[in-house]
């Protein structure tokens, strides 16, 4: 069971990092989401894997899963949503300001970019 979860975390992280390194904003957002799944699962796993013993107090429960990582991850999931939303809005804003959705604001791979009017972006090359 532990090996399975480690494998899941590994593949989520790997795919997330690969997407994070892509040159266009949308895959980056996807990558960030995958990475946040991986991180949440990892944090969750710090409480170890307990089957069938939720942390709800009752007289006849044989034991409980570790509630603390669960509480931490619960808020982390919600915050991750806020972060994803913020990043995608930045991506839209960049698209509006730069006229393309390349992470550096300039398509460099000969990619077919949307024919949007290029608005002024002074000092782009300086960055």
């Amino acid at each position: 069971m532990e090996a399975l979860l480690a494998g899941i975390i590994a593949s989520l992280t790997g795919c997330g990092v690969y997407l994070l390194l892509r040159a266009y904003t949308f895959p980056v957002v996807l990558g960030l989401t995958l990475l946040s799944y991986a991180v949440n699962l990892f944090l969750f796993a710090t409480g170890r894997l307990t089957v069938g013993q939720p942390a709800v107090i009752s007289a006849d429960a044989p034991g409980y899963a570790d509630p603390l990582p669960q509480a931490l991850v619960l808020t982390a999931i919600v915050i991750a949503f806020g972060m994803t939303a913020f990043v995608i809005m930045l991506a839209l804003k960049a698209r509006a300001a730069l006229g393309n959705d390349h992470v550096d604001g300039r398509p460099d791979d000969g990619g077919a970019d949307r024919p949007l009017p290029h608005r002024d972006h002074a000092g782009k090359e300086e960055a």
Partner: protein
Amino acid sequence: MNLLVAVLIPLLGAPLVAWAAHFGRYHAAWAAGLLTALALAVVVPSMPAVFAGETLVTSIPWLPALGLSLAFRLDGFAMLFAILILVIGLLVILYARYYLSDSDSTGRFFAYLMLFMGSMLGIVLAENILLLLMFWEMTSLSSFLLISYWQHRSDARNGARMALAVTGLGGLAMLGGFLLLGHMAGSYALSDILTQGDAIRAHQLYTPTLVLILLGVFTKSAQFPFHFWLPQAMAAPTPVSAYLHSATMVKAGVFLLARLFPVLSGTDAWSVLVMGAGLITLVIGAYFALFKHDLKGLLAYSTISHLGLITLLFGIGTPLAAVAGVFHIINHATFKASLFMAAGIIDHECGTRDMRLINGLWRYMPYTATLAMVAAASMAGVPLFNGFLSKEMFFHEAVNFAKYTTWDWTLTVAAVAAGVFAVAYSLRFIHDVFFNGEPVNLPREPHEPPRWMKVPVEVLVALCLLVGILPAYTVGPLLKVAVAGVLQAEPPYYSLAIWHGVNAALVMSIVALVGGVLVYLGRRPLFKLAQRWHGVLDAPALYQWLLRGILALARAVTRLLDVGSLQRLLAVLIVTALAAGAMGIIPPHVPITGSVPISMPDAASVLVAAALVAVALAAALIHQRRLTALIVLGAVGLLVSLIFVKFSAPDLALTQLSVEIVTIVLLLLAMYFLPRRTPVETDTGRRLRHFLIALGAGSGAGILSWAMLTRPHDPISGYFLDNSVSGGGGTNVVNVILVDFRGFDTLGEITVLALAALGIYALLKDLRLDGPTHDIAGRLWNWDIHPPIMAALVRLLLPLALLVAVFIFLRGHNLPGGGFIAGLVTAVALIMQYLANGVVWTHERMPRNLHPVIGIGLLIAVATGAVSMLLGHPFLTSAYTHVHWPFADFELASAIAFDLGVYLVVVGATLLILVHMGLLHGASHAPAAAGAGAVSGPAGSPGSHSGADAATVRDPARAPAPEPTLEPAD
């Protein structure tokens, strides 16, 4: 206690002074003067005790864990400096009131001056050396502000920056030195440190400590090779030069030298470093002073030379040398401050400070000339003036020192040489300015300054004379206690008489006077020689070169990593993290697999895991097809929630499930404005590199997880499990942790969520994006965007969904559920209305403005905590009671109010984000004119949606228009 008050009066008074300037130009000066007098009045009552030999120490703990306390001490030496700072401060304020021109902001000037005065008082009165350092840095900062007072002048800005860089660097070194000193002494209190001289000098950390502290001292007191900032700082207004750069701030370095004299002096390292720096500074300062054509430049180099003299005296290290050092501090402060003021008057009256232009002023301002002559004579060391007395002591020490060291003649010769040059430049100051022919093309006709502008100079010059003629009766008692404060012992025997008979020191004085006159008479060839050497070993240029070098290096490093590509930067970041992580698992470190036996997976788990890995890989592989990739991503999220179900985390599963829905809706909405497909990146080498990095990152995360999961687990959660029911009144421990045990964390997190939502709102406010006009297959959009079946179903579903939300919310404390999940469920239910029925229909039926929802949610959460504080418990302590309900008997905890706050914030934030995203669609989707009108439709009604306001501004026509919609792309 009164010492703290004395320090705080100028510091807290600074804004008051700035405020006073609103009532009139001179009110700021009056306020500053009154505050200074007040601070003096606070210190004076303590003085008799100090004169009686006491050391007053007061201490208030501040950060005891760091050894930092608001501790102040008043001994003789601190008192001497406090008097110098406050009395000269008063004179400078009076002087500056006349000096500043009508275009200068008096409020700013005097506020800065007060800031400096408070900081400087802090340095000299501090008992705790960390506190001392804090004030030390504050003097650097306020000095920066004062030098750059005339912000429009580039020399002022550059001079200020250089002063700050040099003294700031020294301050940093000194912090290191102080930390070591505190470590060695076991305390940061001066009273403790001063008694442990022997132990500290014998400590192996003594030398690094000494070097670090001396770096601070030398930079502050403009000692070679850090002397170059002081002449550049002359761009400051002259009152500042008189106050900071002659009488007080540059003395902070020598103050510290004297303060730590009992602890650090008496070793070879001390002698070599302190004497060496002092000696070089003494001579080169005096030499360069002669060749400056700028009046203040001459005085600046003279100041450097005199500071070198004081440093040298403390470097000699005998008690008598220390007496001479302290005495010269007093004398230099009086004659140099008055000379600076005189120079300021000349500048003020002539409009220039260039001595090649200013000549023969005796005819125009004989009175000022007389005052300047007395001060200059004191600077030169002419008998009957105070400078002579301390210089005589210095010569005496130089000769004495020669008796018991090998480099005997060096010191004597250097002392005489510096004396010769001091006489020569003093002579030049007087002869060149007040005689030597007629003025050359002065910008204005010089005359005597206003009456009261001369008063500060008169006072200081009178002191020069009084001390020079009657030293024992005037300065004697103060000098005695000050020296006792420095030595932390009874002062040695010394005589404050003018005449000590014919001895070596007198001969040296005479040689210096005669030699100085001769040098001045033969100055022309010397000036030619200096002209030829001009620019060689130019310290400011060296500094600029060094600064440029550092900046170039920084730029090169930045360029190396940041080639203008975020991909590259991110790759560097991840590889660095991987390398750091790899160091932890490279053998022969601990084995990767731990000792805990692992459990065997069941078939269903293997299936889910395989599916999860497959969809994750699919998302990465087909990411070019964005819509498909997004659907795959949704599958990943759902499978993750299955993992939570499996491993006993029902709350997480519910949260993941509902977040997944809002995330996918959000991304779908956003995708509409982005290209449908991601272009293929043609650089296959880079893709391969990124693949390898991703492989490394994935393996790293996997290994880390494996290593963790196979290691013993010793959680702190037992406490929460034990106390959840008895302390929090709920059986769902996860929820109790969220709203009770760790409620403060949760408060922080919902605040973050609220800020993210507001940030997104701000980002979207003026955003205008054009979406595609055709769908993915090239067809025009279907305008029948609210299919009746879906609209009807969703409307029917709403009450049911809300009921579920309420249910989940209420049971959250005892069973899986709670504010977060209920909030998300509510948000999903409402979003469905927007999706199915459109924005306008929905807005007519529910509150449009979501900011208050977020705000009220946060307020409820904070108020819940505040109530428990009012009842005398810590913030967010919860109480609970049993409630008899018609159908059941359950516990009601006050934490449910907190959970309500969480609920409202989650609902408000999620809806705010998604609705505004949808409004963006409304604005872009319809044809241009109608599109803008579409959003202004709801804006026309009262209580209109704020998000629509921007659109209304764009198109004030407010045409009735088709309904804006919220609908998925593609």
